[in-house]
């Protein structure tokens, strides 16, 4: 990794007087095995590297990237970023991060054992997963796909303002997509297991999840329209929290695009709700020692006792808001500059188990999957409408499966309509963790 730090530092050192330069350098190695019907369908091995360079000169910013660490290409990329800056608007708040004295929490996100894990065993794992899904239930008609995937990624960031940072992580995952049913009746279910090392991954868990999710929807019908209390499975809660975190982006607030702007200090949810973004939690999937600008990641409380505490900021948004960065700069690899985002958001678990929540709620809908998040959730207006699948329940007991309907409300109302928070915190491969969450008075649109 030292070579990445060297490259980043060298580029930052090329800053001209009156200019700030930031280089983000990344390299990744990944393997993906896809199996189908007992054979290897594809095996991809990939190594990629690239650099993203930001230049601020005369309070204008430019950015350029290249998918190569070749010295000539890196130099050209800097020149291109410099040229781009000349066409941007002057903005006095622009500026790169500089060391703020907060020490990164050292996290152990890298496992050497991944590099030693032979390809044959990755193939065997994917094949075994497919076998387990197929054997899991006679009603499983096909396994559309079963995967092994792993990646080892490293990155370094350096600026002419004194930032030098690096981080690295390994990830392993398996996933399977099961198809259940016969004739015209078909249901599907996805199962996965994720970890930092091969030994963290559980084939049995992933298989059981895929089988259970596909088979329990067999016989599902389109429900009648009406208002229901929904009980969201942890996966669905995580999806909702990731959307919610997006509305707490300090930059969106400054630009008048957050429905929570000017609501700090107000009750936006029920008193029992505490929402925190904590990338320093080593158990979180999105755990990170530094953010995308090289500042230490830190724990940020967003909602406490239902009251909105504040927003997330990167350096730019912080300067504009007259405060400091919350260490929440994120980027989508070397091809983009730093935006603002949560990495490890979670609701503090409550006291009740999922079964207890269903018993208390009595009658409602257990939601096991949602679709159309991008097309049906408007994070500016708060309108929320997504396709869903799940099980109706009565008297606290699961009843019939339902499909081909939507659930709808607004983000604002859903936060206020939370009626129960589960004790079943689940780490998911997402910027949010899940737990069971019950929300009242949601519109279910079916027949």
């Amino acid at each position, binding site marked *: 990794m030292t070579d990445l730090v060297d490259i980043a530092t060298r580029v930052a050192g090329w800053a001209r007087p009156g200019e700030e330069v930031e280089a983000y350098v990344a390299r990744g190695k990944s393997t993906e095995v896809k199996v189908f019907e007992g054979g290897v369908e594809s095996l991809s091995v990939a190594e990629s590297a690239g650099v993203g360079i930001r230049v601020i000169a005369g309070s204008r910013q430019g950015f*350029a990237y290249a*998918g190569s660490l070749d010295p000539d290409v890196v130099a050209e990329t800097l020149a291109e970023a410099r040229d781009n800056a000349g066409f941007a608007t002057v903005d006095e708040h622009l500026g790169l991060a500089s060391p703020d004295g907060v020490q990164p929490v050292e996290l152990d996100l890298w496992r050497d054992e991944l590099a030693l894990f032979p390809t044959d065993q990755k193939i065997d794992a994917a094949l075994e997963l497919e076998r387990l899904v197929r054997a899991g239930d006679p009603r499983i008609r096909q396994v559309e796909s079963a995967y092994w995937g792993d990646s080892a990624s490293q990155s370094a960031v350096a600026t002419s303002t004194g930032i030098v940072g690096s981080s690295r992580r390994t990830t392993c995952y398996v996933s399977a997509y099961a198809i259940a049913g016969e004739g015209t009746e078909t249901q599907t279910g996805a199962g996965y297991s994720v970890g930092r090392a091969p030994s963290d991954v559980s084939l049995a868990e992933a298989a059981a999840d895929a089988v259970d999710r596909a088979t329990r929807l067999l016989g599902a019908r389109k429900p009648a329209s009406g208002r229901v209390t929904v009980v969201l499975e942890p996966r669905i809660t995580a999806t909702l929290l990731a959307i919610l975190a997006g509305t707490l982006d300090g930059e969106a607030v400054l630009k008048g695009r957050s429905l929570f702007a000017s609501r700090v200090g107000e009750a936006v949810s029920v008193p029992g709700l505490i929402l925190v973004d904590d990338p320093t939690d080593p158990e979180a999937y999105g755990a990170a020692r530094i953010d995308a600008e090289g500042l230490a990641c830190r724990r940020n409380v967003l909602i406490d006792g239902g009251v909105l505490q504040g927003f997330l900021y990167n350096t730019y948004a912080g300067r504009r808001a007259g405060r400091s960065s919350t260490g929440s700069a994120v980027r989508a690899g070397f091809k983009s500059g730093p935006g603002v985002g949560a990495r490890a958001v979670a609701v503090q678990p409550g006291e009740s188990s999922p079964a207890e929540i269903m018993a208390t709620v009595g009658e409602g809908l257990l939601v096991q999957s949602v679709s159309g998040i991008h097309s049906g959730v408007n994070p500016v*207006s708060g309108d929320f*409408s997504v*396709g869903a699948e799940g099980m109706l329940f009565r008297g606290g007991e699961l009843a019939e499966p339902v499909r081909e309907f939507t659930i709808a409300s607004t983000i604002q109302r859903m936060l206020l309509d939370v009626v129960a928070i589960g004790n079943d915190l689940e780490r998911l491969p997402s910027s949010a963790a899940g737990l069971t969450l019950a929300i009242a008075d949601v519109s279910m649109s079916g*027949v």
Partner: protein
Amino acid sequence: MIDEGVLQRVLGDALRTGGDFAEIFAEDRRNSLARLDDGRIEELMSGRERGAGIRVVVGETTGFAHTADLSEPGLRAAAEAAAAAARGGGAGVRTIDLTRVTAPAPKAVTVLPESVPKASKVELLRRADEVARSAGGAIRQVSAVYADGRRQILVANSDGVLASDDQVKTRFSISCVAVGDAGMQTGRESVGATVGWELFDRYDVEELARLAASRALRKLSARPAPSGAVPVVIKSGGGGVLFHEACGHGLEADLVGRDASVFRGRRGEQVASPLVTLVDDGTMGSEWGAIGIDDEGHRAGRNVLIQDGVLTDYMWDWMRARKEGRDSTGNGRRQSYQHLPMVRMTNTYLLAGTEDPEEIVRQTPHGVYVAQLGGGQVNTATGDFVFGMTEAYLIADGHISEPLRDANLIGSGPEVLRNIDVVGNDFNMGSPGTCGKDGQGVPVGDGQPTLRVRSLTVGGTAA
């Protein structure tokens, strides 16, 4: 990009340890983007990526590796990695004669975007911002993006195919936020085509800005969308994504082959209303999804998928076509040289019918009129799909009336296709889209005339 002799030697290398097929896909891509937000030109970005992906097929197994190093040693190393991945047995030496595939370019690009000064691109955004903000004091925020991309690709394979393409695409989009008593609303408009800077001869950014602003402003008085099944009329050009989701993905031969499509085994059957003739067409002029060749070196095609309601054919890539002993339909596409190709749509559209579009609304006593759809998502195995409406109105007594807040619509693909009961005579293509499948995004177009679905579930909150 790469010398023919090198291509031949690398393909030979890839098959040295055995194997049925080897392919080199090389790509040189440049992107540029300018973003205006909050009244400022916030960002100018440019990017360059080049490299090659090499696949080797042994029996049913594909090995794949990619490299950013286009030198002969770099390519040979990738070829060896791909061959090892495919675990080829039975060594042998093969010589490969390459024959160039000629394909008509989608349409000659008049003005290459890279030749246009950055200042002109920035100026375009400034004009759009100014016009959108002048639409009314309720417009509080505007963001606009100009982007262009040039993708030069080269494909050579052990079947002797040698083909190249130069794909230039340009797009523009604008989003507005309006603030009213009932909170904030958004309006968006986007255009894009497989052309250069001449995109702006065809579209006036000021007009697009007015459209986006008026969308946001109108929605300020929008009421919640209905909840439940109602007749839905979709405006010409506003909802091609319906077909993309309802059946497009389900007609991709890779999903069909995995038993993950409700349309499996249904060729020759009536799967839709007789009013439905659906085409996927990569050769379509300068549309957003147009290509000269696909990413496997096959010429783009115009493929009729559904004719008068009867399923005629699926879409095919090389791999799936080979299994079936037939030709590819030119639908093998990939996001970049770092990805394996798979079956993807290009421009997918419903042919026009005969009805007067205004008459369709008049003949609908009660329902929802959708003027613009956003994205969607489908589960091809069950056929259930959703798509979002971003501009919609109630239809009352055969007239378009109050605007509705955003919501998703949900339906079952086969059922919706059967429930299309009127098709208008007013065909239009829609906004440029990016279709995601297995984590890969590719540009796709869609289009349709005004049409009515007898019954579709609207996922709003109104009783």
